[in-house]
């Protein structure tokens, strides 16, 4: 009987894994089904540009079908429960049995976790949020802008830094910068989770007059008084608030009791197997791995995951290792960007921002649709040397 691999989620990780699976499985070895609630694939990094009116949300969404190999079946359905013992997913369109499961259910915003946040803040982590922020920026004539992060982990860690630097550049271009104070709040002791990046970017922010507040864990927001209050006892007033809401794992993961605190699934950092459940793999934001929640992580995880899944399906013991590789660009405003390229053992050493990286990012944003989901972008295949470096 033909075995069945189910991929739950049609984002970067799910789409790429499904495409790689059908390429690497032997004919007739297993069918691959991708389950997604609306079968739409959203290019979330584009939302940053929507906030500045440089991209339209309609251009950031495509049907998952258009990105998938025709051998992958799609089931448009809402997953309600995963039973890892029976190996069944309950959906609003019936139960689906699996022999191997890939959980690619992503991360989701949870603004309700901080009192006052939902009513008060703008953000650019959804299409609607980014559009509303764009409208607010069009109306903005000066005042206190507070930008930052209201909880960790959050996806695309460079994005809040990119936003605040691009905002600075935009306000300068509009002649509003001298009428504006920009404050950046971070729950961490620095502006970015990784120290080598923080020490490069913080001086750029300071040189642009952006005031940095570290160890600022947002406890509540008072929309009437227009103040953000931190757990550490600091209060910052705002006229325009742009806080990235806390993130949580998918509801189906939480409802199924598969998540640790926050709804993230305990995952082996090398093999991408769920640590507590056989026949289950996890890709991208859904994992509990201490790495960026980003499309790039999902992209670079996919090769090892697919190789391990196929070995599992065949009851083979070989093990393929993800080395923690992530690569992404960081916009620094005024048409410049830098590059973050790192893995579990090698922190990023971002070069001086320049125009070339900005244009590379712009090109990547365009070519994404024809490269990453299909597995065509060079780099996702780890060399033997990298495998060895990954160690245990």
């Amino acid at each position, binding site marked *: 009987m033909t075995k069945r691999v189910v991929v739950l989620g049609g984002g970067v990780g799910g789409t790429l894994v499904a495409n790689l699976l059908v390429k690497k499985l032997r004919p007739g070895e297993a069918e691959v089904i991708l389950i997604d609630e609306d079968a739409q694939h959203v290019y979330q990094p584009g939302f940053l540009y929507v906030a500045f009116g440089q991209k339209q949300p309609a251009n950031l969404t495509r049907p998952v079908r258009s990105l998938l190999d025709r051998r992958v079946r799609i089931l448009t359905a809402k997953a309600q429960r995963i039973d890892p013992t029976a190996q069944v997913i309950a959906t609003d369109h019936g139960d689906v049995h699996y022999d191997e499961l890939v959980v690619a259910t992503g991360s989701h915003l949870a603004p309700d976790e901080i009192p006052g946040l939902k009513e008060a803040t703008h953000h650019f982590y959804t299409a609607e949020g980014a559009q509303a922020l764009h409208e607010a920026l069009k109306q903005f004539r000066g005042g206190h802008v507070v930008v930052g992060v209201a909880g*960790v982990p959050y996806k695309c860690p460079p994005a809040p830094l990119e936003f605040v630097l691009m905002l600075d550049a935009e306000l300068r271009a509009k002649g509003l910068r001298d009428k504006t104070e920009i404050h950046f709040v971070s*729950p*961490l*002791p620095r502006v970015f*989770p*990784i*120290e080598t990046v923080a020490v490069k970017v913080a001086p750029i922010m300071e040189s642009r007059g952006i005031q940095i507040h570290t*160890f600022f*864990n947002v*406890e509540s927001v008072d929309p009437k008084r227009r103040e953000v209050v931190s*757990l*550490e*006892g600091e209060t910052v007033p705002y006229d325009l608030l742009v806080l990235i809401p806390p993130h949580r794992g998918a509801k189906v993961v939480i409802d199924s009791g598969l998540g640790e*605190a926050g709804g993230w699934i305990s995952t082996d950092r090398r093999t991408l197997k769920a640590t507590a459940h056989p026949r289950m793999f996890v890709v991208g934001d859904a994992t509990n791995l*201490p790495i960026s929640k980003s499309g790039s992580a999902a992209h670079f995880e996919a090769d090892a995951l697919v190789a391990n899944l196929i070995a599992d399906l065949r009851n083979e013991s070989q093990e393929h290792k993800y080395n923690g590789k992530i690569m992404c660009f960081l916009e620094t405003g005024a048409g410049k960007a830098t590059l973050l390229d790192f893995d579990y053992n090698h922190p990023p050493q971002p070069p001086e921002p320049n125009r070339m990286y900005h244009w590379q990012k712009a090109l990547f944003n365009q070519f994404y649709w024809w490269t990453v989901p299909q597995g065509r972008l060079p780099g996702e295949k780890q060399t033997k040397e990298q495998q060895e470096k990954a160690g245990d």
Partner: protein
Amino acid sequence: MSTQSNVKIDRVIDARGSFCPGPLMEMIRAMKAAQVGEVVAVLSNESGSKRDIPAWADKSGQEFVGIFEQDGHDQIVVRKVK
């Protein structure tokens, strides 16, 4: 349970294997949930925690009790005082 300094620990968070800034955020999460007067210990094998957690306690006005080296990891202890 007591540490070398004989402080009674009310909550222990095992953040070993959680990388920067994991243990710091685990401490902050635990302190949010703790009652005033309670003592929270985070177990960490991430070297930055030894610098970041005392700095956070100082900034937030909580009492840093100490860092105690244990079997291959650190126990970092903070008392919630407000």
